[in-house]
């Protein structure tokens, strides 16, 4: 199961979630057992999505046992006779897709299915996750599967894993852990982790599709096998301190630069418009006017409760050693050179276009809502499903946010190159 560090594609910036002109409202409530329920009804949508979100990921792995949360995620869906095999068979029969992801902050079980199958399959999935026969799991074989995942896992996800490791070196072993740390994980560790972190008060359920809140609530009532958590069991989020600034050069077969900043806590809402503004200038400058890269993408990421704005630039040039400095200059330019009216029009339009498509994409909307639901929050803090409108860009606010956040103390650089680094 793939390590998926939380990231919100820039195209989803500043979207409207609470009110949608063409579709029904997003419904948020806390159930009696403490679970959060989020429903985005889309009447007559042919496809639907469900996300089971546990607000705990690799950040809660115990010392010396890195990879435990991820291994548990694998084991809960390990295909073995009984309810799990029944679930997999029903998933295949329905033409659905079932998957799961572990990040630093959360573990998410993901189901995308034709509308008519969504609720029955979600019920089966909920009951599997909330009542796992952990004593029947085969740990040693699953360790082999994770070894293969680690060996063949690559792409941008691994760059993000390295960003995570660089920013939070105190977290035990990254999301997958190491073969050595995983070898120390035993059944009692898994049971203890499940009992502590899979509590109802640490869980959110997201439904998107042709589902009413009432129908979702009934399905959840029928399926949940966990005892209700006591108010005292609500967990306060773990606070991680990032090791910024980061400046790492890594010897690699490809040239990729990941450059950006950890945002000031009050500026998270500005991340998406900032990413869009930056993306426009980077595309025009580094891809069109003075080509230096083959592609450059900006991303808003969330790691261990911190918001990051990063640009990822790819090139085959053998003379790219100046790329980190060029990226640094373009970020600084957002402070020094205000957005022009033409740029504001482009960015505004882009964000609205992204929203107009999101409304019809249950999978993307479910991922978006799951990401919001996974965010660490204080025990009494209500769940915020995210921005409610495609707000008009405020260039002054963006510039202020950039001024606060784009400082040397918050800078992050990981430069992968065949020519330098360790």
């Amino acid at each position, binding site marked *: *199961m793939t390590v998926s560090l939380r990231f919100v594609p820039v195209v989803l910036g500043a979207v409207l979630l609470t009110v949608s002109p063409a579709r029904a409202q997003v419904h948020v409530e806390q159930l009696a057992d403490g679970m959060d329920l989020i429903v985005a009804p889309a009447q007559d949508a042919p496809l639907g999505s469900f996300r089971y979100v546990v607000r705990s990921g690799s950040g809660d792995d115990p010392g010396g046992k890195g990879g435990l949360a991820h291994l548990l995620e694998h084991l809960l869906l390990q295909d073995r006779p009984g309810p799990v095999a029944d679930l997999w068979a029903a998933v295949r029969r329905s033409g659905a897709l079932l998957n799961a992801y572990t990040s630093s902050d959360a573990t998410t079980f993901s189901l995308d299915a034709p509308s008519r199958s969504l609720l029955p399959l979600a019920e089966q999935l909920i009951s599997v996750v909330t009542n796992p026969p952990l004593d029947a799991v085969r740990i040693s074989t699953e360790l082999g599967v994770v070894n293969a995942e680690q060996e063949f896992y690559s792409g941008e996800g691994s760059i993000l894993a390295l960003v995570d490791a660089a920013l939070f070196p105190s977290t035990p072993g990254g999301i997958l852990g190491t073969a050595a740390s995983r070898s120390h994980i035993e059944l009692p560790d898994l049971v203890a982790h499940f009992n502590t972190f899979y509590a109802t008060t640490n869980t959110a359920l997201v439904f998107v599709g042709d589902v009413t809140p009432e129908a979702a609530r009934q399905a959840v009532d029928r399926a949940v096998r966990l005892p209700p958590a006591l108010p005292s069991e609500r967990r306060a989020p773990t606070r991680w301190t990032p090791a910024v600034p980061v400046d790492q050069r890594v010897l690699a077969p490809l040239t990729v630069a990941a450059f950006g900043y950890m945002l000031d806590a009050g500026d998270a809402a500005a991340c998406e418009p900032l990413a869009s503004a930056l993306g426009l200038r980077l595309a025009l400058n580094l891809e*069109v006017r003075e080509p230096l890269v083959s592609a450059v993408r900006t991303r808003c990421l969330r790691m261990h409760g911190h918001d990051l704005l990063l640009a990822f630039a790819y090139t085959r040039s053998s003379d790219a050693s100046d790329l980190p400095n060029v990226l640094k200059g373009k970020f600084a330019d957002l402070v020094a050179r205000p957005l022009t009216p033409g740029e504001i029009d482009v960015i505004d339009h882009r964000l609205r276009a992204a929203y107009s498509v999101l409304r019809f994409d249950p999978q993307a909307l479910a991922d978006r809502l799951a990401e919001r639901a996974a965010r660490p929050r204080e025990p009494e803090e209500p769940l915020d499903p995210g921005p409610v409108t495609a707000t008009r860009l405020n260039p002054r606010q963006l510039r202020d946010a950039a001024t606060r956040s784009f400082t040397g103390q918050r800078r992050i650089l990981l430069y992968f190159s065949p020519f330098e680094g360790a």
Partner: protein
Amino acid sequence: MTAAALLAVAVAAAPAGQAEFDYATMPDEPGRPRVILAPRDSPQATLSVTFDVGSYDEEGIPGLTRLAQHAMLEANPRVPYEKLVTALYRANATLQLDTGQRECGFRLTAPRDEFERLADQLTSLVLAPRIDGGRLAAAAERTRLDQREPDRPGSVLVLLTSTIASDPRYANDTYGDPDQIDMISVEQVRAHVARWMVPGNATVVFAGGFSPATATRMLRRFRGGARHAPEPLALDLPIDSSIGAASETHFIAYPFLLARPRDPAALRVLAALLQTRLERQARAAGVGYSPVVFPWHSRWANLLVVRFSVSAGGEAVAASLLKDEIAAIREGRVSDEELEQHRRFVLEQLRVVDRTPADLAAILSAGDGTGWYGPGLAGALAGLTRADFFASASRWLADSSRVHILFSRNAPARILVSPPTAIGRRR
């Protein structure tokens, strides 16, 4: 075809195109693109323009096709490149360039409201290009910088065919040699475009939320050039080879022929079934993460492809289970329930593809009248009997027509290569 005839076809296509798996084609006419229209009720639309030319056809000028593609966008005064990039960004649209061995293409996906304006620009750029010699250096620089994104499915197929084909032209790098790109002249680019990248050698697909009448009007402007249908990939079967690598991956491929009406359905069920069984066994044995099985259907190659990456220490077990699972299907050792599950799975997944413009355009751009995609699919799946399925499966999975390339830690390093890793599957 006359304008009136084109419009008539388009209007006829509109209601029919809404049906599941349906699409309309224009009658073939010399000098005109092959046109496929698949309108759907979707907030997005995709335009795919594919030319039957790739690195195989470069005649000793590596990277010529890729450079010509960049030149069509960047060294083409029909739409200034900066204006195009800004328009795409503003619309939150994507434009993807693909360069393969026997084909290259452009794929635009945009929100419905923005699509037709962008599609109009793209068709002008690539179906009636004017290559500006003064801007070629910029296009060459972009080609030189192209960083191949790791793990794209196309990379797997390029690697596979370059390894198994006896014709050395399949080994030409689809992105060319960065050190030689600057040596390509504007005359060479213009000649390549004039011969190969012409309306008459193009396949144009519109899919998703667009107006067929507008699309047809848009395409009426383009005419010229001849079709160069690629000859089928010739393989000297069976092929069994080991290549030294840093990690162990099996690539297995079976050429297939769609000989019976239900074969397109049977092949998809076979791929899904084999993937499930391999994944289940690999995970149960703890030797693999996510085997992938998919049918690769194009105008020049038809292969059922299996890619199975094996964790260190699991080599012997993996080789054995791979052999056993393929044999089980070939010999009909599959329960009715399993078959039924995968028949339904394939149908539902095809419905998802049918509603996703980019995926639908990709599948239709390889269309060639073999029934690979179309309204008959649902019926073919529903009517696929056990006997039909195993008759086709046993024919396709014959050992005598198998390609097996093993990238292995234990094999001598015949060529320096790392097998591509994960594609898509994430659990």
